[in-house]
């Protein structure tokens, strides 16, 4: 498997504080990779660097062999990366369907074609019956689903998910895990996810990257990571096993 996303020596400082330093990892085509670590480890910063929210101070990002380092977020989206936000950002006054139509318009010129894509995506995410409600009226689990739906509608080759399972009840987590696994298996969608819900990380991911204090401290299969003493010490805690 070749790497769809290749992150090399990525670094970012905020006012002297090293948020991310020299982080390298690869996301193979068709895989699900989880990015884990304690709060403040630099996971979301890493996401933002990949998605182009701000440029890195050092390092490179390649998508499918092409450099995307320093691109603007809309260019990164055009290059094929869809993302969700940890703190959900629905277009609140618009309907659920309109939110997803806007995502689909990233690759469609015609609104009607975008609407068809939006309907399919909403159906898949189980939001079809809420299509005409204003996005602000959704419950948190549904808003998280809407984040995923809107990102999916941009038809990405790589989906960045920032804690889409946090705050969900176990049954809702299972439902979302099923959806993500389905997308990965049926459509070969590659996923890079920041996640705290270890049960989901174990169930979903092929590969886990662990960050702490802005540095990569370990990576490997979920089973290997769960047994890694450094990871247990810094993040998982002995009792979680």
């Amino acid at each position: 498997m070749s790497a769809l996303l290749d992150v090399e020596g990525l670094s970012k400082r905020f006012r002297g504080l090293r948020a991310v330093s020299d982080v390298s990892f690869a996301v193979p085509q068709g895989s699900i990779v989880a990015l884990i670590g304690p709060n403040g480890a630099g996971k979301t910063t890493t996401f933002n660097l990949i998605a182009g929210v701000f440029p890195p101070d050092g390092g490179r990002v390649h998508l499918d062999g092409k450099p995307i380092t320093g691109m603007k977020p809309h260019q990164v989206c055009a290059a094929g990366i869809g993302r969700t936000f940890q703190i959900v950002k629905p277009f609140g006054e618009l309907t659920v369907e309109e939110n997803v139509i806007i995502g689909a318009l990233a690759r469609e010129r015609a609104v009607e074609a975008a609407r068809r894509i939006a309907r399919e995506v909403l159906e898949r995410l189980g939001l079809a019956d809420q299509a005409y409600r204003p996005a602000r009226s959704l419950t948190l689990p549904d808003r998280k689903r809407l984040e995923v739906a809107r990102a999916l509608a941009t038809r990405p080759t790589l989906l960045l998910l920032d804690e889409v399972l946090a705050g969900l009840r176990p049954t809702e987590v299972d439902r979302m895990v099923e959806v993500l696994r389905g997308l990965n298996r049926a459509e070969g969608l590659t996923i890079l996810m920041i996640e705290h819900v270890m049960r989901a990380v174990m169930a979903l991911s092929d590969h886990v990257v662990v960050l702490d204090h802005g540095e990569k401290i370990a990576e490997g299969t979920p089973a290997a990571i769960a047994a890694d003493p450094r990871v247990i010490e810094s993040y998982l805690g002995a009792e979680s096993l």
Partner: protein
Amino acid sequence: MTPRALVLGGLLLAVLLVVPLFADGYVLSVLTTVLWFAYVGQAWNVMMGFSGLLSLGHALYVGLGAYASAALFVHFGIGPLVGLFAGIALAVAAGAFIGFLGFRFGVRGVHFALLTIAFAEVARIGFDHIGWVGGSGGLFLPVGGSNPLNLRGSPTLFYYVILALVLLALVLAKRLLHSRLGYQWLAIREDAEAAEAVGIDLFRARIKAVVVSAALTALGGVFQAFYFNNLFPEQVFSMGRSIEIILPAIVGGVGTLFGPILGAFILTPLGEALTSAVGALGVDMPGMKQLFYGAALVLIIVFRPDGVWPWLARRLRLVRAPGEGGR
């Protein structure tokens, strides 16, 4: 929209079409003013209501459209049908420049609004010193004659022209709102960061909003120049005028298609009614009308903060609930 809305809208349009057959000069002039504010309010709404860009300097675009077309007419006898292109070009250039400064350098929200005020003020003071267009002494269009193509004619002519412009702006705004660009604007209005993440080029989409709004507003300026036949920088570019332009949309409902129209139909007659009321009550002291006008505005904003139109549309069941139409 419900069938009911179509019937009511059709009736209103029919009434507006036949009004000149019955109305006297005063009523016609009030309605012309109402429609003018409805038109420029709609144009302003493209920026604020659709794209979330607050402009408090829309008098700039009115003035540029007015002065460009009037100057060409006065100096070269070039009619407004040609002059409007000069006015629009000038306003589009000004809008694009303001947009470039604002969006390139990350001037957001109220600071962007300050930038729009600054440019309108620069124009107000600058035009005072441009002798070619009369400076502070004003620019006067030759009156008399009847040539509809040159906007020379009766008040009825102007009434129908502005009515046509209102309908044109309404249709255009509706089409824009349901276009790809319209959805991009709404997304930016709701959350710029999320909009960027779904592939929207914020800079380009915002510039387009300013340019469309400036162009439409400039057309309103052309109308104004030929309707009033005189232009003074102190009036045309004034801050007060910029505020007057945005009030109908705010009172009617920012971001709605019918809000600016309804708002203009509320505000202009309200002002006229207050003028005659303070006269009839014998309390016609300076500022008295403004006092009541301000109080009425406050009441409307307090009780209908989203504007009167969304509430009225629900009450009259002109829109389907929820999520279908209404915007």
